[in-house]
């Protein structure tokens, strides 16, 4: 096509060689540079460069208002002996594993429910997604009020039902606070998992189920041998995203507990903010943030290789 176009102006039968500029103008690679330029500029200036800078900062003792000098692994050695850092690593892993697992189970269950035939199906499906639409911080504020130590509606209801005799201190007790934060995260994540899995479920032809039923398959067998295998690739992608976003979560915890009580809910991201921005020790904060990278890389690698294997098994070469 490009050759067609370059020769188009050459109407005269005489040998016409387009100028260098004319050839350059229709060169794909040259055009592509200009098309890619705006996106590349943003991503290099504000993503790739800060990513590198962050790793560099983690090797310096930079503070707010003062450029740092190279201190080698000092920040990491400091963190290695810091029990609060290890607590935050533990919290982050606990938060990610528990919340992701429950989000997956409830999300899949909800997707299966929504996939069934019922009145007002479309409206119910749209309503389900609302927790995901509303900004996390704003719904976290609602949870903050629901978890209030004095006026919690949950405590009030349980007292009225006679199940407990005093208010539950949702955000004041270490384990209660962890549970409460995890619940809020699940609450927000379930709609995402459910709606994306539902999109996968809708591609499963009902005739497969009819055939399986005629062959005497039970409910569980239909799920295990039809639904689950067809859904596997989507599950892999959805759960990768879910794990990544849960692992790097910041706003929910910051709005609810700010890492308290006594650091019991500090995630790596919130600890990094606490040390880097509030205390002003940018180098140390950057080191905590950099320490998250291996975990993220591991999660991405697992799902990447999982998908490659599936591709190889099914022999699909689609693009």
């Amino acid at each position, binding site marked *: 096509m490009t050759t067609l176009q370059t020769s188009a102006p050459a109407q005269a039968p005489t040998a016409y060689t387009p100028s260098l500029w004319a050839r350059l103008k229709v060169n794909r690679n040259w055009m592509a540079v200009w098309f*890619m330029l705006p996106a590349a500029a943003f991503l290099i200036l504000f993503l790739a460069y800060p990513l590198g800078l962050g790793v560099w900062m983690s090797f310096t003792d930079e503070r707010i208002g003062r450029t740092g000098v190279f201190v080698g692994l000092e920040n990491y050695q400091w963190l290695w002996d810091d029990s609060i850092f290890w607590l935050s690593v533990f919290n982050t892993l606990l938060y990610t594993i528990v919340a992701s697992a429950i989000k997956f189970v409830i999300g899949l*269950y909800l997707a299966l429910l929504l996939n069934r035939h019922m009145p007002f199906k479309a409206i119910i499906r749209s309503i389900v997604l609302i927790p995901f639409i509303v900004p996390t911080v704003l*719904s976290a504020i609602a949870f903050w009020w629901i978890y209030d130590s004095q006026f919690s509606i949950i405590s009030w209801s349980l007292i009225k039902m006679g199940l407990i005799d005093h208010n539950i201190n949702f955000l004041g007790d270490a384990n209660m606070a962890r549970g409460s934060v995890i619940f809020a995260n699940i*609450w927000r994540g379930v709609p995402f998992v459910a709606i994306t899995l539902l999109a996968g479920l809708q*591609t499963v032809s009902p005739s497969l189920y009819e055939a399986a039923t005629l062959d005497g398959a039970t409910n569980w067998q239909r799920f295990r041998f039809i639904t689950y295998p067809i859904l596997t690739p989507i599950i892999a992608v959805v759960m990768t995203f879910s794990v990544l976003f849960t692992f790097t979560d910041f706003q929910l915890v910051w709005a609810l507990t700010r890492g308290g009580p006594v650091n019991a809910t500090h995630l790596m991201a919130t600890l*990094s903010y606490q040390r880097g921005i509030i205390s002003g020790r940018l180098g140390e904060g950057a080191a905590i943030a950099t320490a998250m990278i291996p975990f993220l890389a591991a999660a991405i690698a697992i799902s990447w290789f999982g998908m490659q294997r599936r591709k190889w098994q099914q022999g*699909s070469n689609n693009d």
Partner: protein
Amino acid sequence: MTDHALQTKAPAASQNDDSDGMSYLESLPRRLVTLYLPLFIILVVLLFPFYWMGLTSIKPDEQLIDMEKYNPFWVVHPTFKHISKLLFETQYPRWLWNTMYVAVGATTLSIAASVLAAYAIVRLRFKGAEAVGVLIFFAYLVPPSILFIPLASVIQAYGLFDSPLSLILVYPTLLIPFSTWLLMGYFKTIPYELEECALIDGASRWQILTKIVVPLAVPGLISAFIFSFTLCWNEFIYALTFLQSTPNKTVPVAIVNEFVDGDIYKWGSLMAGALVGSLPLVILYAFFVEHYVSAMTGAVKE
């Protein structure tokens, strides 16, 4: 990239979506227990925080803290005191405006950049196009929580600290990877023959993009726009780090920082703030549910 087969099957499946399948075999009591009851419970849990948010924002103060005399699940004399206090005695309108300004600015910039990038990757097929596509996908996986500290010093160096402009420039790093992938999917569905015809008729690449590809990809553009807009509205950590002075804040940051004064009567205005901050997105969502869902599932499927 991976699930082309799924996508091509989707229209066929959605056609028989409304068929009953085998559901006529189920008796009503069974459906009640296995479908309606669990669904009802999940919906109640999902929606209760919003009910509570709305209820608290119109409750008079004395009803908020006296749970013996008044049933907390209902309101006796609703009041708009909290909402009017929020709108007329605080800088809330200013924060709303900031959020809107940042979201519209960042989204517009990102969509423009993404359209160009997606077109180049899908249709110009330049050397290394596939590698660039994969790189952009990885950019989507880089979370803000590991970038905010170095970005804070970059923003400081550019002299943009405490300015909403800093957010307009930084948010595209979250939005461009997502929108580019979404639009790549849409552009692939546009028949290549259309472009060939235009090329033979002497159209430039720019004309093809603006007169053929973009008009045909409008649903994709709407999806990308809505989703990006929601992401901007939701973003918290960059806004918290880069914006210092009260009038420059966005709604999520201001809510968390400006209302927390230890006053037990703060809850009414806090909930009103959360409610008013959520409404624009919920209204937008109500109008574009389909686009929103296709953006979300499209990004995952690619």
